[in-house]
């Protein structure tokens, strides 16, 4: 009766299995075994099913109903996707359960989900007994890698020559001088070497440099400590046999496939004679694929000198490009570039402060323009300044001189890191923009009281300031002052509005777009001048008028529209327009810019696809819409 019970439960499961590959091709015998072993579990929406932290995977999961999201855990990734959605009939984590290791992904039920879970040992037995199932699992792992490789090739086709890819030979990847010990080396000596070198593993090789084994920290636990092995024993007793050796000419992709299918984290690289020439770790391979946010942050924060920051600056660009290729939106992307650039700038400032001492003095480094608005694109030059407080009026010039020397060093270092010096000399090393709090206030109120053209131009740059380093209170003080003055000067705001309306979006009466506005670039549209700047200028005026402290245009428009009680969907359409234009700029700068050069903002609308053309047209319409609103509000004719 119990047998009959089990048979009928299994029968129920079989009905499901037969509808899904690869089970529909498996023998009745194998299927029956699967169905009789598979437990049925329920995972409510939001719960984690299995994760990187749950240790070696105990089950093979097959989704019966619901939806599961796989997210990469940490930096270590096996595939190019960062988030993957799985539905009924799909199974996971095949690589991990095959290799008997923890999952590299976190699997979370995003809907109420039922899973069949086959215990790992039954899964392995099935792999042995069912050729169809075996093929499915092996191919699955290979197909993920293949998919990843194809994506990679696609995304990086234009830049392939510049960087290593998964097609690079192993000879150029990973550690070229791995630490080697002989098989007779006593454990104690080997451990001392590991400790001194600060490494987690070493290779055991004979005098001919042919590897015989690998010793890792986990071997230390399992094969030395827990096995009660004396430290005088030779390392050959405690090492794992060298399982995975690949020729130097094998590709990174081969190494990745081998690691994934055999569940190891290191591949030994050998030359034609079988002699060890290097070690490639999982991490080495992933760094080919991904430049991680956290890694960049860490390397920026721990950089000892500007040379070290140069690489980080390049990484920021690379990561931004990867994100662009993955379809991250412009708002997030520009803010993200700004955040990393901020970190980079701060580190440059910190490094220079080692040579310049301003202890006891209140000061702050300010960013202006697009950097001040968190809207940096790939080609952004420096716009910065300094505000400081001088307790003793007489000493101002001497102190300014010290700040100028310091600022010059910082400006030069930033230039080396890829932020070109400002052509208009809007930099902290310019005495005009290295001012005390009082001087800044005087400057601001002068511009506001006498809004002549230069003053208005300056307002569009300097009123978008943001403190990057030092005493933020000084900048807050400047901001309060600015907002009070601006709100109390309707004539200034009206002048700003008139100025902002000087340029109209390039929408044609007969044609879609006007492409002859720039005499030097016929057929092209300057997306900054006739696109994003329109939004940015309008955002600034409304922010000043309504007392919005933020400098970012999207935030300014959102907050100001709340204060002006504009309709939510209206402002969202405007923001979508701005974001689309920004995205086009970013794509254009990266994909079409010459490597190493400053990208421009000139696009040829005829080269856009039909969909993008239509969205761009709509985006310009949104620009025109907010301009009309500005015209009405400030009575500009």
């Amino acid at each position, binding site marked *: 009766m119990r047998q009959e*019970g089990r048979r*009928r*439960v299994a029968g*129920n499961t079989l009905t499901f299995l037969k509808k899904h590959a690869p089970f529909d091709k498996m023998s009745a015998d194998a299927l029956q075994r699967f*169905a*009789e072993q598979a437990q*049925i579990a329920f995972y409510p929406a939001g719960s984690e099913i299995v994760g990187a932290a749950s240790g070696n995977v105990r089950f093979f999961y097959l989704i019966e109903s619901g939806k599961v999201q796989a997210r990469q855990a940490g930096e270590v990734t096996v595939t190019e996707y960062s988030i993957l959605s799985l539905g009924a009939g799909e199974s996971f984590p095949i690589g991990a359960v095959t290799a008997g290791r923890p999952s590299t992904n976190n699997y979370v039920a995003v809907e109420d989900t*039922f899973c069949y879970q086959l215990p790992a040992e039954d899964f392995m037995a099935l792999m042995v007994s069912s050729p169809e199932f075996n093929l499915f699992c092996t191919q699955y792992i290979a197909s993920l890698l293949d998919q990843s490789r194809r994506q990679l090739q696609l995304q990086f086709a234009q830049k392939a020559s510049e960087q290593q890819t998964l097609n690079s030979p192993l000879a150029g990847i990973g550690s070229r001088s791995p630490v080697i010990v002989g098989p007779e080396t006593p454990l104690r000596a080997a451990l001392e070497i590991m400790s001194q070198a600060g490494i987690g593993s070493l290779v055991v090789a004979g005098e001919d440099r042919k590897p015989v084994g690998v010793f890792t920290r986990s071997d230390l636990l399992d094969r030395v400590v827990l096995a009660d092995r004396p430290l005088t024993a030779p390392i050959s007793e405690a090492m794992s046999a060298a399982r995975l050796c690949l020729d130097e000419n094998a590709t990174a992709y081969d190494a990745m496939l081998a690691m994934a299918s055999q569940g190891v984290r290191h591949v030994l690289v050998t030359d034609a004679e079988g002699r060890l020439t290097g070690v490639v770790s999982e991490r080495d391979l992933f760094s080919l694929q991904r430049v991680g946010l956290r890694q960049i942050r860490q390397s920026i924060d721990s950089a000892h000198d500007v040379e070290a920051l140069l690489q980080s600056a390049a990484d920021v660009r690379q990561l931004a490009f990867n994100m662009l290729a993955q379809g991250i939106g412009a708002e997030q992307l520009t803010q993200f570039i700004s955040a990393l650039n901020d970190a980079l700038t701060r580190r440059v400032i910190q490094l220079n402060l080692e040579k310049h001492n301003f202890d006891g003095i209140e000061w702050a480094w300010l960013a202006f323009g697009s950097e001040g608005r968190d809207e940096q694109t790939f080609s952004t030059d420096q716009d910065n300044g300094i505000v400081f407080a001088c307790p003793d009026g007489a000493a101002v010039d001497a102190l300014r001189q010290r700040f100028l020397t310091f600022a010059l060093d910082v400006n030069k270092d930033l230039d080396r890191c890829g932020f070109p010096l400002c052509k208009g000399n809007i930099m902290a090393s310019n005495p005009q923009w290295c001012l005390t709090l009082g001087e800044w206030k005087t400057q601001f109120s002068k511009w506001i009281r006498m809004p002549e053209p230069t003053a208005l131009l300056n307002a569009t740059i300097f009123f978008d300031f943001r403190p990057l380093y030092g005493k933020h209170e000084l900048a807050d003080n400047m901001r309060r002052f600015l907002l009070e003055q601006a709100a109390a000067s309707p004539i200034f705001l009206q002048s700003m509005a008139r100025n902002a309306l000087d340029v109209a979006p390039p929408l044609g009466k007969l044609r879609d777009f006007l492409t002859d506005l720039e005499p030097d670039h016929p057929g092209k549209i300057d997306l900054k001048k006739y696109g994003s700047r329109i939004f940015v200028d309008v955002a600034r005026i409304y922010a000043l008028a309504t007392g919005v402290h933020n400098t970012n245009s999207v935030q300014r428009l959102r907050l100001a529209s709340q204060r002006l009680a504009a309709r939510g969907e209206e402002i969202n359409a405007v923001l979508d327009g701005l974001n689309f234009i920004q995205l086009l700029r970013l794509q254009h700068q990266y994909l079409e810019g010459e490597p190493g050069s400053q990208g421009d903002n000139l696009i040829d609308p005829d080269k856009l696809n039909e969909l993008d053309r239509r969205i761009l047209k709509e985006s310009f319409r949104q620009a025109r819409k907010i301009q009309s609103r500005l015209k009405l509000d400030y009575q500009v004719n």
Partner: protein
Amino acid sequence: MFGLKGLLFKSDAPAHLPDDVRAALDAWRNTPAPTLDDFHFHTRYVIVDIASRGMNPESDQLLEIAASTVQRSTILPADALFIDLETSADNDAPADEASLDRQLMAFLQFAGKAPLVTYHVSYVGGFLQRAFRERLGVDFQPQWIDLAWLLPAMFSDKGSSVMPLDHWIGVFGLDAGSGRRSAMENTLLLARIFQMLLVRASAKEIDTAARLIDESRASTFLRRTH
């Protein structure tokens, strides 16, 4: 109360019972009831459904019993039972009386004294009670959890009155196949619904079997009388 139940259980073992069944029955009576104060995760719930000829427990014939369990929040295929009362346990021959008794006894052994979960206790419990009374002389009064009444109480957002099981199957988006369902198919659907219910119940701090049984009784009582 338990003393009284014990007395009732002992009272009238019918004379026709084969010796092995009689011994098994004694053993079953002596098994301690599981503690109901532990979390759902540690409790073994037995999900049960039946097939019958007609709907009247007092006069119609019980045909099949299908049971599975939910323990550690999962359904284990190995822990399931199916009884076809029309054929004997050993072969496909029509059941004789002794084999009928053995089959019913097998259910008692499978269930132990675990809480029982079903849809409409009045129907399922009614048939089981009569069978156990008539065949084994057992006054079968397990701790019932009645999903028919408990589901509207726990998932009032999805349905607030007692409804046909198919309604809940639809609400939860379960695949019930097409056509008439067997008792075992029903049991497995109930088991899945019960897994979902355990999550909901725990969120409402009804986190032990005892509390869930109380809740089931309360929902049955409240809805019947108000």
